[in-house]
């Protein structure tokens, strides 16, 4: 099988073969492909336009940004000053970016780990109140953050009296799972229900325990859903603002969202160039992550929707 796949790959990379295949592709199919791509252009342009404006604004000088007489769609005098300002005058690369990565990775790992076990239990185990638990998880997910942050402050302060976690990213690593876990459970619950229980029963017959079957059989099959949950949890953590604002005021412990707000929005004075540079630099990790796992993400979203 491996050799046949290698042969197929060799054939696909052979220019002569490619040329032959192209020549054999019917005109109608090539035309259809062209139309498909043409039809996609407006949607792609619409989706990428904000990112484009962010990039263009980030490489403009302050003078050019202030000048409404010039086109906003192109930079005439390109500059990296805004990125230099970000690096030299703020803690963006030094602290905020690193803090955000640590918090997002840690809270995602914790939430997805808990979420997998909880969702599996709710999807498979039969116990009293399982339906109510499922609904409760969903309702928890609906509780807005501005309501939760007040009681959570008491929790964080209580822990802080014992181990100082206020003004450190640990306060976020502890609290982010409170809104990530219900979401992950809710997402994976639907996904686990789509995996045939018979496959698991086969694993039991082969000697697997419940957890063994989960690890060896269910999780590999649920990988698209899990990656989807990881991506979502990571993005939500990355973009979170309120908890980060309330639990952390120390400059060196801030995450990107709050740090950028603190340093680059000064009352009614907005440092537009640097703000856009921060937005662009802060978007790159998410874009990279999504570009690697896009297929999983899409299939994870759709597969969980049907039984």
């Amino acid at each position, binding site marked *: 099988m491996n050799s046949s796949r290698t042969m197929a790959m060799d054939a696909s990379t052979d220019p002569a073969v490619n040329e032959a295949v192209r020549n054999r592709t019917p005109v109608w199919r090539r035309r259809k492909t062209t139309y498909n791509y043409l039809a996609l252009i407006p949607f792609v342009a619409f989706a990428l336009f904000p990112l484009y404006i962010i990039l263009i604004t980030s490489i403009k000088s*302050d*003078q050019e*940004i*202030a*000048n*409404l*007489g010039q086109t906003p769609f192109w930079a005439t005098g390109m500059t990296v000053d805004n990125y230099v300002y970000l690096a030299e005058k703020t803690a963006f690369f030094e602290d905020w970016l690193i803090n955000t990565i640590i918090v997002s990775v840690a809270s995602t790992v914790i939430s997805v780990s808990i979420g997998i076990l909880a969702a599996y239990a709710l999807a498979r*185990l039969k116990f009293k109140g399982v339906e109510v638990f499922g609904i409760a998880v969903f309702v928890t997910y609906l509780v807005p953050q501005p309501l939760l*942050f*007040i009681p959570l*402050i*008491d929790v*964080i*302060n209580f822990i*802080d*009296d*014992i*181990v*100082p976690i*206020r003004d450190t990213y640990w306060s976020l690593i502890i609290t982010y799972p409170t809104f990530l876990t219900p979401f992950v459970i809710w997402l994976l619950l639907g996904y686990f229900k789509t995996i045939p229980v018979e496959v698991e029963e086969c694993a*039991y017959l082969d*000697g*697997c*325990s*419940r*957890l*063994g079957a989960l*690890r060896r059989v269910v999780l590999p099959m649920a990988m698209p859903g899990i990656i989807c949950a990881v991506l979502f949890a990571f993005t939500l953590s990355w973009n979170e603002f*309120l908890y980060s*604002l*309330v*639990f952390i*005021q*120390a*400059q060196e412990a801030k995450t990107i969202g*709050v740090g950028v*707000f*603190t*340093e680059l*929005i*000064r*009352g*009614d*004075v*907005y440092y537009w160039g640097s703000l856009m540079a921060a937005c662009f630099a802060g978007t790159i990790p998410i874009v990279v992550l999504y570009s690697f796992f896009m297929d999983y993400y899409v299939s994870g979203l759709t597969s969980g929707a049907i039984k």
Partner: protein
Amino acid sequence: MEKTTSTPKGGLLGQSRTRREFLGTSAKVGGGIAAILATGQAPAYAQERELRMLVWSHFVPASDEELERQFKEFGKQAGVSVRMDRVAHLQLPAVLAGEVQGQKGHDIVNVSNSNPHLYSDHLEDISDIYGEIGADGGGWTAETMGKGRKGEQAALPWYFISFPLVFRKDLIAEIGEKVPDTWEDVHRVGMKLKAKGHPLGIQLAHSADANWINRGILWSHGAKLVAEDSRTVAVNTPETVEAFKFVRALYKDCMEQEVLAWDDRNNNVCMISGKCSMILNPISAYRAAVRENALIPGTQNLIAEQIEHVIPPKGPAGRHMCASFVGVGIWKFAKEKELAKEFLKYHFQKDNQNRLLVASKGYNQPVLAQFADHPLYSSDPKYAFATEIGKYTHSLGWPGVPTAAAQTVYDQYLLPDTLAECATDRLSPEDAVAKLEKQMKRVYKRLNRKY
């Protein structure tokens, strides 16, 4: 179910665990955590004396740098560590609310406008240092500021941020007009300049500027939102209706639709980009024009050179403008209350206040009489308005004091919203004022009971 804890091929992570072993391990871990909780002993490094201060990110970064320098200098002298934290001004209320809820946080906090009234129960009465500092500084010029609900001094007035009329002198000269002195002048000049593509820019939207400026317009027309007792809604008067009619005329004749969607930065952008001829704003618009070397469109001339400031226009009932009064207080739950008081006394010394005022480039307008005629303001004609504007500037809740109810009316943008409805003809001036009164009464009824 039994398979969960007793498996032929190993359980979780490939290690065999009986239910009994699992429970035993859990009990040990739980016991360990309980022991830590029971001691309640913070690590030694957390027990060092530290004075902490929370302020907003100042409009002029150099002001933050100078404040931090003074704070560190004080810490060095007092032999304690200090930490100054900053948050964006729009996010400060959430952080304050969090600290009050948890009864834990910074020692010294930036509490502006109505916050001393709102957080009266949680702020230390600092009447003693208020008196001392006021006596040393030639008296306070903002005597109603920083008061708690029982009349105690819950915060020190720090500085205020005023709203002069900011205008392009070249554009006004082009149409042969003089600098507007009254609101009628603003209307007349604004009409002519709008026709030339340079509108007036006053927010009628959810922004702080809209709240400050439009209160000033109302007061200049003899209207008021609340009576002198600070508790009785007194907005529904013929003067208020006239003021609403005037704002509608300003909007239709001198402004463009975009002001209905502006936030605090948009009037700055409009002025710096060369579009707007007049706005009402602190000096930040001018400072931004200087910082960005903004040019007059189509020329190589710096726009900052054409920007001037004058005291706010006069109306039928005189010259009045609302301003943000910034204060500084000490939490009752602060760990270092005495040290915090010492710092405030140190910070309000003449030399330190002087340095802060200079660092802020005049943005921090003084509340101590000895700085009212600071040389900085006479050194630059752009700042000439600053020595006079304090006479016409009032706080939120005027002619009463800034209260929690006044702050709520402010936070809910009740005035800008009803003005916008009137300006766009969705409500008649009379109906808009009646609606504002109804909304305000609801707020005051609830909060008068509570505070």
